[in-house]
């Protein structure tokens, strides 16, 4: 076996100065050339753990204990200049958002060269120039003078991330820490960055810690996977073993929540949400959301136990959990509404501008009564513009027709007659910005009721209770404010606000993209249920191709402002005709292979 490149022992990170625990008892080791996927949802403490490997914490947090050993050196024991030498030399870091991690005032050539200069790489400027050329070639970027003279903002997101990747590999480090490096990128760009990373790590024997919220991203990349929850590693093991023999209920829940392109599968979310530091329960932190929980889980923190030699888990009932055979069978199949329904809303030859730029070209789609149409596309495809045009929220020029029940719709929501405005409701992407921060949930939900209906007090109270029940929220939330709710709860409130108008068409714009995977699945479950129970017609806009099979009967794939593929979801996914759909399918990361392999 190859040599150990990184050892982490009992890492503990606290909030500074309160001493509230962020991470605790984080231990793992990594061999040369090995890739570890460090997977966790929000508030899991994965990013703090990652930067701790370089002995770095942002203001407000502090490393409180444990040890990190990189290539034989104790990182926490190093002096200032030794530590500087280690960072960027022996262990390097790739941040989440390359756009803000590159200095806006410096040319990228300067930022690349300074790493080599600072670490004394190469003996002459000519040698360092050669190394820069080499690095750029490795990350598949041009290295001509003109390119190196550019500023970060003159590069695309994918190019920026490649520059940072090149920078990280510049001094041939032993270990590289990647913090959600592809999160802001489109799947196509993500696929390219991932394959570049894999090739580089293999070729140079670099050990990599890949931090991500998305199990699917690391399914094919990582040799081993560590799942973090509430600041602890709850399961750690070789990828194939972890996917097929998941022994922690949380890992199982995550797997059931991840949408898979192949084969229709209803998604199953994990109830509740991950607790923040300072709000974590005693005992097992996952216990309040866990269907396996017993009394002991509430009082005692489970220790690390071995499932097999290299497979660790932190659960009192690991044996019972792993005894349940299939991961995928945890989820139930359910049929989606669809078929020969009448056309309810038709978009005809829609062309729209954003400022002076034309971003939608001649789009035609049809929403049918009681059915869900998914619109899939990457950023810049025009999918959100399309949905906003339908909702009457597009602020710029547009031509073409949108017909609702056979009659043309006014452009602006405000100029639509009340019954029409009431019939078409919109749910926004970001639940952190779509609810008024200074209003209670009751005030937020009352607004549409007061505008569209003439209810007396009792009727209104009754309707509020009904709405909350419809989106599976407790009545006590009415008196709360949005910032006292989790992201998933907020999105449910936003959906309830739309439902308050008693609409026939619900436009959902990327409604799950700000949520954790486990919460995303619950929202999709809810939307499917609403479709079935109240017969809503839905437009589901998403960038995630894997998601549409779980919710939409029909799908339209958009690229650069055009619909490139349109048909029943199953056909679109099984027999894509457009080249674009095919490459999108190929680039979308999936756990299918990992689940069924062997």
């Amino acid at each position, binding site marked *: 076996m190859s040599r150990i490149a990184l050892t982490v022992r009992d890492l503990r990170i606290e909030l500074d100065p309160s001493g509230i625990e962020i991470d605790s008892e984080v231990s793992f080791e990594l061999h040369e050339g090995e890739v570890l996927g460090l997977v966790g949802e929000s*508030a899991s403490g994965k990013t703090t753990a990652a930067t701790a490997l370089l002995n770095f914490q942002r203001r407000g947090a502090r490393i409180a204990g444990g040890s990190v050993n990189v290539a034989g050196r104790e990182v926490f024991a190093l002096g200032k200049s030794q530590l500087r030498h280690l960072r960027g030399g022996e262990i390097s870091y790739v941040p989440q958002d390359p756009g803000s991690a590159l200095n806006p005032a410096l040319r990228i050539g300067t930022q690349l060269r300074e790493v080599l200069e600072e670490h004394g790489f190469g003996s002459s400027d000519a040698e360092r120039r050669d190394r820069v050329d080499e690095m750029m070639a490795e990350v598949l970027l041009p290295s001509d003078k003109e390119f190196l003279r550019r500023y970060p903002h003159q590069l695309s997101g994918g190019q920026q991330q490649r520059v940072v990747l090149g920078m990280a590999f510049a001094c041939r480090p032993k270990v590289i820490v990647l913090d*959600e490096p592809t999160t802001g990128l489109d799947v196509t760009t993500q696929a390219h960055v991932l394959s570049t990373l894999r090739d580089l790590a293999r070729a140079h024997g670099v050990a990599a810690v890949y931090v991500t919220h998305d199990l699917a991203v690391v399914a094919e990349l990582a040799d081993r996977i560590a799942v973090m929850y509430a600041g602890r590693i709850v399961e750690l093991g070789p990828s194939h073993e972890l996917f097929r023999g998941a022994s922690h209920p949380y890992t199982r829940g995550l797997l059931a929540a991840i949408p898979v392109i192949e084969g229709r599968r209803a998604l199953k979310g994990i109830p509740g949400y991950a607790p923040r530091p300072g709000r974590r329960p005693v005992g097992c932190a996952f216990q309040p959301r866990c269907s396996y929980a017993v009394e002991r889980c509430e009082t005692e923190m489970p220790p690390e136990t071995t499932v097999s030699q290299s497979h660790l888990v932190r659960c009192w009932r690991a044996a019972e959990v792993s005894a349940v055979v299939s991961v995928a069978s945890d989820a139930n199949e359910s049929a989606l509404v669809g078929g020969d329904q009448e056309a309810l809303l038709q978009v005809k030859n829609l062309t729209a501008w954003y400022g002076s730029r034309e971003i939608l070209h001649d789009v035609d789609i049809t929403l049918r009564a009681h059915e869900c149409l998914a619109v899939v596309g990457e950023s810049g495809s025009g999918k959100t513009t399309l949905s906003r045009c339908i909702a*009457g929220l597009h602020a710029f020029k547009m031509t073409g027709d949108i017909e609702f029940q056979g009659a043309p719709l006014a452009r602006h929501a405000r100029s639509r007659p009340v019954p029409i*405005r009431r019939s078409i409701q919109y749910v*926004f992407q970001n639940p952190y910005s779509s609810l008024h921060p200074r209003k209670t949930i009751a005030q937020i939900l009352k*607004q549409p009721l007061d505008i569209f209906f003439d209810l007396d007090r009792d009727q209104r109270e009754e309707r509020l209770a009904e709405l909350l029940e419809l989106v599976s929220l407790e009545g006590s939330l009415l008196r709360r404010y949005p910032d006292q709710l989790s992201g998933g709860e907020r999105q449910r409130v936003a959906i309830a606000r739309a439902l308050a108008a008693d609409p026939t068409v619900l436009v959902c714009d990327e409604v799950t993209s*700000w949520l954790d995977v486990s919460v995303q699945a619950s929202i999709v479950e809810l939307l499917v249920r609403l479709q079935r129970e109240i017969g809503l017609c839905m437009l589901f806009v998403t960038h995630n191709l894997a998601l549409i099979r779980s919710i939409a009967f029909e799908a339209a794939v958009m690229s650069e402002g055009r619909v490139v593929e349109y048909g029943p979801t199953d056909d679109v996914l099984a027999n894509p005709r457009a080249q674009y759909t095919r490459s999108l399918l190929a680039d979308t990361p999936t756990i299918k292979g990992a689940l069924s392999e062997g």
Partner: protein
Amino acid sequence: MSPERKKGPQALHGPGLELSEEVIGPGFENVSAPRAQGDKRRSEWVQLAHDALGYRRTKIGLVLVLFVAVLAILGPLLAPYTPYEFTGLPYAQPGSDAVLGTDHLGRDVLSRVLYGGRSVLLLAFAATAIGSFLGVTFGLVAGYTRDAVDDTVMRLLDVVLAFPQIVLVLLFVSILGPKVWLIVLIVGLTHSPRIARVTRGATLEVRERDFIKAAEALGVSRIRIAIGEILPTITSPLLVEFGLRLTYSIGLIAALSFLGFGLQPPAADWGLMINENRIGLIVQPYAVFVPVALIAVLTIGTNLVTDGMARAMIGIERDTGAA
């Protein structure tokens, strides 16, 4: 919490939410003392005041302001003489019958100090109120309507901005004469572009947030959105701005009196006292020093309170993600 942040024309949310979401979400440093669920103070200005009082500088500032305010308001009740009586020789040194000595005409300095604060406080407050009303109105209109109206309003306000505040007052006073209402009005007017800029900036940011779009989609009228949806979310920056402008108003009003364009003799007014007595600075410094010191204490106090509010505002922004 933002695993799939998307770029491109659709992504309209500001950069504020992108920080360190992973560990603790948008309240990185604040989480160290998590707010209990029941502890939420709701109206934004109540919460701002409450949080601001958590800083020592706010408390000190408040004590200073209250000290001067009480002195100015209750002063006339405590004064040993009326401000117009001649109680001794000009520039008499402090003694048993005049604790702070007498002024250039032989009037009691202490009595004039006790009478002379009301005008400064009242006029400064009035000027700030006028400026805030105008500024917030201009800013909301410019920020929410955008395009041509926005351009025109802001360009016109730029013209006002081009004059240093005191110069604009002098310009208008030169022909119309030193009238108190004119000074208050012009000082308020000169504040308005600055307040409008802050209001407009905050409005522009809030306007892009989805809860405004949600109200638009429901068909809520523009004026109700501006007053009912936008204004309550930008009260923190506006209160901070109000504090700042109040500090400057006090300075400006006092400076104008000092230049001889405020209240006219024989009125008792701190700025005027400084002007009248500065020739005798060497002989009888109290007639100048005491009003100067009181103005200093007052402005330092308002500025400390303002700074406390500004700090509290940053905390509130983190908490609610509001602009």
